[in-house]
């Protein structure tokens, strides 16, 4: 059966090696077909790649789709790459890859403000324009930051909403994402200051972290209500957190008794707004955010702007935008969703 084993052995090794090669070539071909950024085709290099915190996240699916729309409008090449999980250094190898490919622009939401810095600067040294959106890096590592809303605006709208819902007095808690999240930590700091100055009767008793994981956020909500039986409201400034908290509340005795607000997306929150678990919540439109980030990358690639304060660029259907302090561009004011208007949105 296996008379000449030596040959069979060599054959087995060869089969292993060939299968590896086949896999590599097969995938390489698909890569060529989909056409990554080609730097040398005369015109401006509109190959713009979106690098979200991680793939398979509904929020980034929406924002990146907005970016894809914008890139289609001005005739560029859209691509999206990203790690499966959002570790601090997980984006570095993807940024390095984009540097090697020589894309025109990278639009990235940073998992860590420092860890991806050097990789981004290497990309910029190679001529790639870097726009951050959603979560910024340190300002010296990118050309522009597209800010979804000012931290003050977000913190204020969430505190105002919870105050209105609990009648301006009582104990509240915060269900955040990861302990290191740049955005959430900044918002929480401002919330504390704003609560102290404008709502002295509201007491923030606890801040817990659901690590942007649905089950962990669900469990943290349950634990929060158990340890604080006299809690009146929860602010969850993360879309994963507010959805998990709403799911817990809607099936518990606390439904309608504990106020819940924060940042959520209309599609995820629709059921809970309809059934009365949640009265109102806030957010910006992530599709607009991705759209504006793509136009900002285009303006940088065209050389119309350098990212200096006072630069003005065209944001497509969103109008004209001006670069503010520290190279950041503000999308606009947060938007409040409630029973009356949630039907108008689909993202």
């Amino acid at each position, binding site marked *: 059966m296996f008379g000449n*084993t030596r040959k069979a052995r060599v054959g087995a090794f060869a089969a292993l090696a060939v299968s*590896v090669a086949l896999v590599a070539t097969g*995938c*390489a071909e698909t890569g060529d077909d989909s056409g*990554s950024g080609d730097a040398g085709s005369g015109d401006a290099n509109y190959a713009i790649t979106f690098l979200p915190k991680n793939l398979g996240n509904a929020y980034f699916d929406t924002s990146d789709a907005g970016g894809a729309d914008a890139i289609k409008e001005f005739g560029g090449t859209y691509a999206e790459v990203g790690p499966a999980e959002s570790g601090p250094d997980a984006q570095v*190898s993807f940024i390095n*890859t984009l540097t090697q490919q020589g894309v025109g622009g990278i639009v990235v939401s940073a998992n860590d403000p420092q860890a991806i810095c050097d990789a981004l600067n290497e990309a910029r040294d190679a001529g790639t324009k870097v726009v951050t959106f959603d979560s910024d890096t340190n300002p010296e590592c990118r050309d522009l930051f597209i800010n979804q809303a000012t931290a003050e605006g977000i913190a204020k709208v969430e505190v105002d909403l919870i105050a209105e819902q609990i009648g301006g007095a009582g104990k509240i808690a915060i269900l955040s994402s990861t302990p290191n999240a740049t955005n959430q930590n900044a918002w929480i700091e401002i919330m504390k200051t704003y609560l102290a100055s404008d709502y002295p009767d509201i007491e923030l008793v606890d801040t817990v972290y659901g690590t942007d994981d649905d089950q962990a956020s669900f469990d943290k909500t349950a634990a929060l209500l158990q340890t604080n039986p006299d809690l009146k409201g929860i602010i969850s400034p993360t879309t994963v957190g507010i959805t998990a908290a709403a799911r817990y509340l809607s099936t518990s005795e606390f439904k309608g008794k504990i106020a819940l607000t924060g940042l959520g997306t209309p599609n995820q929150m629709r059921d809970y707004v309809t059934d009365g678990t949640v009265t109102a919540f806030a957010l910006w439109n992530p599709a607009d955010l991705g759209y504006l980030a793509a136009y900002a990358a285009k303006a940088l690639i065209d050389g119309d702007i350098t990212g200096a304060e006072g630069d003005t660029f065209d944001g497509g259907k969103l109008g004209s935008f001006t670069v503010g302090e520290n190279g950041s561009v503000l999308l606009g004011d947060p938007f409040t969703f409630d029973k009356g208007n949630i039907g108008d949105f689909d993202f």
Partner: protein
Amino acid sequence: MTNFLQALAPATRTYRDHSQPLWRRILLSREAAVIGAVLLVIIVASVSVRAFGKPITATYLLLDIAPILLIALPMTLIIITGEIDLSVASIVGLSSVTLGVLHSNGMPIEAAAVVALIVGAIAGALNGFLITIVGLPSLAVTIGTLALYRGLAVGLLGTKAVTEFSEFWTSLAKSKIGASAIPSVVIPIVILAVIFGVLLHLTPFGRGVYAIGLSAEAARFSGIHVERTKFTLFMLSGLVSALAGIYYTLRFSSARGDNATGLELSVIAAVLLGGVSIFGGRGSTLGPIAGAALIGVLASALRLANVTSDVINIITGTLLVASVVATSFLAWLHTKRIRPGKKTETLVAAKG
């Protein structure tokens, strides 16, 4: 088929056939196959993947796999003794946080790095103590310390990340050797690889490592210090993991408790892909180095070809399973060869 399944059991082992000439033994070895696969992927990717052929690819690739290469060295020896260390990535995190916390409190980076190395060695020694003196299985112990060390790391630094490291050290971690594309971190890796290679292949200690993997009982009766050997290996593993943690921190200029989460699986994958038997007793230092290179080169080429990270994981996983199955399959072929003819004939006769 029964024969094949029997061959999968740990009892069956193969040895290099010393009746063959040396060049043939080397060419037919598992290491040669993995190195061949690496070269093949490099050649194919250079031709078919745009931008892969540039020197910068080698720079990024080596920077990426450096921690895997480092930790794979002691891991190889541990797996050859039939044990495993799952806590390595958590020790990387613990060492990173130790360095960060001490440095941010004013300790010079060199001194903080020494303390981080000591912490790593202590963490490894605790693993070794629980495994050799208390006598618990390494799988259970290191699953426990995986959680313990990670918890300590995240707990120590809390919600912060330490990012203030001097430019000198962070750029040293990313520097290249002269004008070449090879990062300087390759130098300590090569030195350590030679040390571990000599230790495993050319010393009585190394022969003891193999003997323990083949049969701890027999090794003990031949006068090998089984416990002392294992304890030393786990401590070395902790020390090298801490070194990887220092590199990791400086490369990303960021000390965080969750640094290198999940790295232990990449390390073990590289070691197994490199032909080290998970049952112990078989393997070399060169194999896992080639295994790490294969995983790294494949991932790099596939990313450049715009393949998503999920698909890259699927391919790496499939390759690992295929390599393990291939090992057992070859072992089966080998047993057929040692006992030629007869068994097959009787089997055929029985069937007929």
